[in-house]
């Protein structure tokens, strides 16, 4: 066990990726920032004493407290409070958790769907491939935001309103995921077409390995690199898409605000001097997306897959 770990560790340490990683300050910094954000968001209960979504713990009289370093700031609200007296930092972290959950789930959904379709399409070819690829074409015809809006609109129409609020987050994940899967399908199909013609696949076929095993044991690991790059960039896109939808008011309900919702709500206070209510969620969102993009960019350069 120990030796196995060691070899894995050695493998990582010897790899080009690791070398390139420690040579790239941007990659390191963005990774650290992301780790901090992920940690704080997912363990927010332990990071901050406040729960902004327990209405009984809030006091409206705390509302509009500016950040602690300003004149009227209070030490207990580091980044100040919003119009309902919620601690901004806690609100942002809870919001970021929702954004991240939506982002990750949407990307995973898109990834699983896209890779499964792209892999099988590339592998089997023929009519099936044509249909899948036409489908991606049609899907790409509808840009992501529009697709998400449509899905949301339809969901509003067919799900009852009470259910809709509960379902909103799933609808959102589905909406964003469904608009991103063609990317994964295209990339994994293209990669599969390359891999499929490599001799190791032929070798396995000749040995008698079944198609399913060839696809998932042999081809899948080999097409993961470009898929991961797309996935990373897709994560940033999904988070931004979620924020945008929430900003437009068709995202998650305001009772469980994501970063986009927070920016939308805070936007009303942009001119009134309570800049922190919109500024901090916005800057947080930008830092989050920027870090993911930096990492994705570095991955793209390092793994250097041909994305198109």
């Amino acid at each position, binding site marked *: 066990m120990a030796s196995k770990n060691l070899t894995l560790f050695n493998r990582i340490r010897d790899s080009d990726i690791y070398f390139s990683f420690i040579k790239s300050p941007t990659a390191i910094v963005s990774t650290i920032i992301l780790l901090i954000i992920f940690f704080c968001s997912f363990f927010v209960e332990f990071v901050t004493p406040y729960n902004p979504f327990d209405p009984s713990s809030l006091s409206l009289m705390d509302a509009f407290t500016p950040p602690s370093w300003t004149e009227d700031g209070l030490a207990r609200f580091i980044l100040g409070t919003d119009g309902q007296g919620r601690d901004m930092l806690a609100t942002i972290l809870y919001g970021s958790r929702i954004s991240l959950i939506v982002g990750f789930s949407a990307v995973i959904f898109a990834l699983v769907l896209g890779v499964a379709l792209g892999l099988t399409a590339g592998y089997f070819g023929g009519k099936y491939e044509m249909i899948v690829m*036409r489908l991606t*074409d*049609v899907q*790409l*015809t*509808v*840009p*992501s*935001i*529009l697709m998400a*809006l*449509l899905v*949301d*609109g*339809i969901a*509003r*129409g*067919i799900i009852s309103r009470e259910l809709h609020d509960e379902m909103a987050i799933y609808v959102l994940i589905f909406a964003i995921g469904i608009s991103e899967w063609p990317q994964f399908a295209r990339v994994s199909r293209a990669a599969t077409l390359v891999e499929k013609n490599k001799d190791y696949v032929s070798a396995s076929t000749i040995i008698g390995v079944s198609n399913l095993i060839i696809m998932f044991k042999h081809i899948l690991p080999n097409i993961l690199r470009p898929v991961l790059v797309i996935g990373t960039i897709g994560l*940033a896109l999904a988070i*931004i898409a979620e*924020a*945008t939808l929430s*900003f*437009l*008011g*068709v995202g998650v309900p305001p009772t469980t605000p994501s970063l*986009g919702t927070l*920016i939308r709500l805070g*936007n009303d206070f*942009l*001119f009134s001097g309570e800049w922190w209510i*919109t500024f901090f969620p*916005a800057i947080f*969102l*930008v830092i989050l*997306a*920027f870090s*993911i*993009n*930096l990492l994705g*960019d570095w991955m793209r350069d390092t793994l250097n897959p*041909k*994305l*198109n």
Partner: protein
Amino acid sequence: MKRLFQSAMVMLVVAFVSFSLFNFVGDPINNMVGEETSDEERAELRDTLGLTDPIHIQFSRFVVNASKGEFGISYQLRRPVSELISERLPATIELVLISALIALVSGTLLGVYTGINRKGFLSDIILAISLLGVSLPTFVIGILFIYLFAVILGILPSFGRGEVVNIGFWSTGFLTLSGLKAIILPSVTLSLFQMTYIIRLVRAEMMEILQTDYIKFARARGINEKSIHYKHALKNGLIPVITIAGINIGTLIAFSIITETVFQWPGMGFLFIQAVQFVDIPIMSAYLVFIAFVFVMINFIVDILYYFIDPRIRVKAEAVSG
């Protein structure tokens, strides 16, 4: 021909989706009448609207109407959708065209620059900014611009189209100073996100082309670097830009929803977002069909452009036809 057929198929699929929207998302009758309408009246209305006909007849009627641009009456605004759309079409088209122009021209220029000067300081700056651009949601940029240019500096308008001039059915903001000023912030906001994409794509394309054998061979022949970059590499690099431009315009139309919301631009996106919030199905389905139509047209134009620009496709097509 094949292309045309495919386009028609795409349109039909989209038409079917929007038709389904109409029929299966909520009861269209309920959406049209008040609660005090009696059941008899409802049945009568259902009959006159042809909602009792078999589904394929309804669908073909929908297609016929859609091709005439008729999508019924908006549930929310109580006006014919075709009228609403045609009223707001020019605003969106003008915004999208200007944005596409900004995104394509500056994106390509910067992309080529960074692709050629890979290690330069300026390139690094451009790339960092472009990455930031991808990370900044459009609405944040919009708010920032309004705050900076309209409120603090007071040099550019923050909303609307300014003065418009009607030329036939088309209302344009291009012919007045206020119209031109009004389009600056929304179009720049809208184009930024796309521009950063184009920068990165063109850069990657340029870098890849500069690695190819034919560029190396051109170098070996002593062709000067300028010609290599701007003639040999650029022309090859521009081929994918056409595709990008096509997708770009479509995406811009979609993203104009956000920009139009932030800048209160009286276009279709603004109409659409309100329709979504209100579940105003006629507008939603009309918008969907419209977008699909635009995309199909763009794809078609892109194909034609390819034919003219890429000799490999042109010669093949000629060989087949001749």
